[in-house]
């Protein structure tokens, strides 16, 4: 297995990476290593630089501020056809937090100004006037197996799905896309989630599922090491206890 190498492109970490998302790169590398394969990572620092999408198995875009998402989306339009081709070819894109808006058809800001974005995935993003932060727990079967994901959400936008796109998962606790049952979006192998920060550190099973998908994309059929994530599992248990206390007290605060 030592000769199996996957490549990840870490997109625009200096422009985005608002909530410690660099941890997700560490999680991809660590999980890959535990599974018995090697993960190589390149940083792509500027949206003005052309990307060779064939080079990479996984593209990760961390959460960012809407102002810079809009300017980055404008810059990326020059590469729109390459990005669309990569998405259609099943390349894996993981996009966390507000950066989902990069792929939106339309971004509508709180002052009603409108911006077109990359238009891949059939959804709009609408900025709210208020910030909403809370724990977020959701179930997903979008990556071939059932996963329960535990994270946090700091939401400044509502994501409105249109015909042709489907949610990544179902909200168990939290706000999700816009306060309903839908969480995130899955479009081909583009994974959009509102769970921001180092969500792959808290949920290494999601990192493992992404790595398995990348191997499948390359038709690599190997037996991976069995791994357990005791501390991560304990973390999820404690977070769920906290959420249950909030629910029990019939407030969202748990006070």
């Amino acid at each position, binding site marked *: 297995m030592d000769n199996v190498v996957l490549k990840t492109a870490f997109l625009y*970490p*200096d*422009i*985005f*990476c*608002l*909530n*410690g*998302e*660099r*941890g997700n*790169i*560490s*999680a991809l590398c*660590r999980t890959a290593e535990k599974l018995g394969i090697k993960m190589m*990572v390149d*940083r792509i*620092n*500027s*949206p*003005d630089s052309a990307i060779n999408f064939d080079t990479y198995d996984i593209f990760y875009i961390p959460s*960012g*501020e*809407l*102002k*810079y998402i809009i*300017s*980055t989306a404008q*810059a990326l339009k020059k590469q729109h056809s390459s990005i669309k081709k990569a998405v259609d070819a099943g390349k894996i894109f993981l996009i966390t937090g*507000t950066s989902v808006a990069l792929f939106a058809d339309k971004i509508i800001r709180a002052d009603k100004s409108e911006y077109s974005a990359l238009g891949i995935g059939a959804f709009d993003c609408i900025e709210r006037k208020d*910030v909403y*932060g*809370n*724990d977020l727990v959701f179930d997903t079967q979008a990556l071939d197996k059932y996963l329960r994901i535990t994270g*946090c959400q*700091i939401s*400044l936008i509502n994501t409105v799905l249109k015909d042709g796109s489907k949610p990544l998962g179902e909200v168990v606790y939290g706000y999700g896309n816009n306060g309903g049952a839908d969480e995130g979006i899955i479009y081909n192998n583009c994974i959009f989630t509102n769970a*921001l*920060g*180092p969500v792959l*550190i*808290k949920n290494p099973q999601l990192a493992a599922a992404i790595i398995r998908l990348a191997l499948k994309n390359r038709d690599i059929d190997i037996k991976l090491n069995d791994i357990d994530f005791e*501390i*991560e599992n*304990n*973390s999820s248990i*404690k*977070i769920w*206890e*906290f959420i249950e206390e*909030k629910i029990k007290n019939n*407030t*969202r*605060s*748990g*006070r």
Partner: protein
Amino acid sequence: MRFVTELFFAKIIVFLINIINPQKGTSFPGKIINKIDNNFIGKFKGIDLNKVVFITGTNGKSTLTNLLYHILKKNGLNVICNTEGANQKCGIATALIKNSTFFGRVKGQYFVFEIDERSLYQIYPYIKAKHMVITNIQKDQVQRNGDPDYIVRKLREVINSDMTLYLNNDEPRCKSFEDLSEDTVYFGVDKNSQSFIKNGFLDISMPCPVCGRRIEFNYLNVDNIGNFYCPSCDFASEKTPDVKAVDINYTMDRFSINNQIFQMPYNVPFMLYNYSGSVAAALRLGLKIEDIASAFASFKNVGGRIESIRYHKKVIKYIRIKQENPETLQSAIDSVANDKNEKVFILGLNEIIDFDPHYTNTFYAYDCDFNNLIASNVSKYVCFSKYVCYDTALRFIYEGVDEEKIIILPTKDVSILLDTIDNLECGNVYLITWLKTFNQIKEYVRSSQKLEQQQNG
């Protein structure tokens, strides 16, 4: 007449609250009176707006406010200030209630107010300060502030060309306010022995507030603050800011501004921006630089973040952090890392309970660098808190710490933490957590010492 009646009522509240619960005396009276009259703070007489300084920003505003207040007071000026950190409209109202006659004439020549960055728009319409100091705009309390640009937009709604702006020359978001006023005073800090650069694979810079591309730092004095430029547009630190701390000597606790030597009351890098910012404002208010410098030696910061407590044979050195604020956590980590002796490092990140809904964000720990700490001879890492101790442990594991060195305590019971500290061999103990937990620890230590004294007769 209505205002005089309201003020009389407010002064009675101040009097009563000082008897019943003095801790609430910095904001509660103003909270009540603002509900009755939203324009209350705008009705005081004798406020010369040319002598009103508002100080806002993410980090450092309390210290800069206290220092500027101290400089003005030491120079014999009569100053009204919300030194106790009540920085919302109710805090300003309370400060004015306390420092005015029964007819609403204020008793000060100068007014120095720390202003919460989200509250500025509620205060400025009533007191149109001519001086606005902005320390920096950083990630902080994301559940409340969302992202830094959210705060930038809030401030831009208020800042205007009728103000003198004092801007941190080394902080890109802060400097980006320069287009709003032609009267701009830049303050900064020169490269010094503790300046650094970040060039690790996972090190993160920040977006240029003008063009959205990556900002480059020639050097950093504090995380995300240092001499910068944008390679994609011409936005950059001014080459010659109006006020710049130079010749910084941490060993001799000295620095210079405009050839005047200043004594450093606290010799840590992040304080230097408070020093240069306060000097910038004091100079513009008409003080002489030698008179400003003479005040520095006697400055004592309110609510310092370092404290020690003794528990049995151990002295626990406590460094306070603000939760969801990576800069305070990074500063605390760096302070501990400066001690190269064997040590125990205790990190008590907690669930966030500032606002509703409470939640379990510990992500800001991933914005911090732990490399220097880990290289500084830590024998044990203790992670404690009821709900997020495992997440805290993961932060260390991902930094390469051996799991054998990590003790995880999933509890809020501080006695368990203290028993654990007691049983560790190493006597050099550092504790980083928020103030609430530390107060619980202090209270437990105090009561257990009292009990032991009683048992020993």
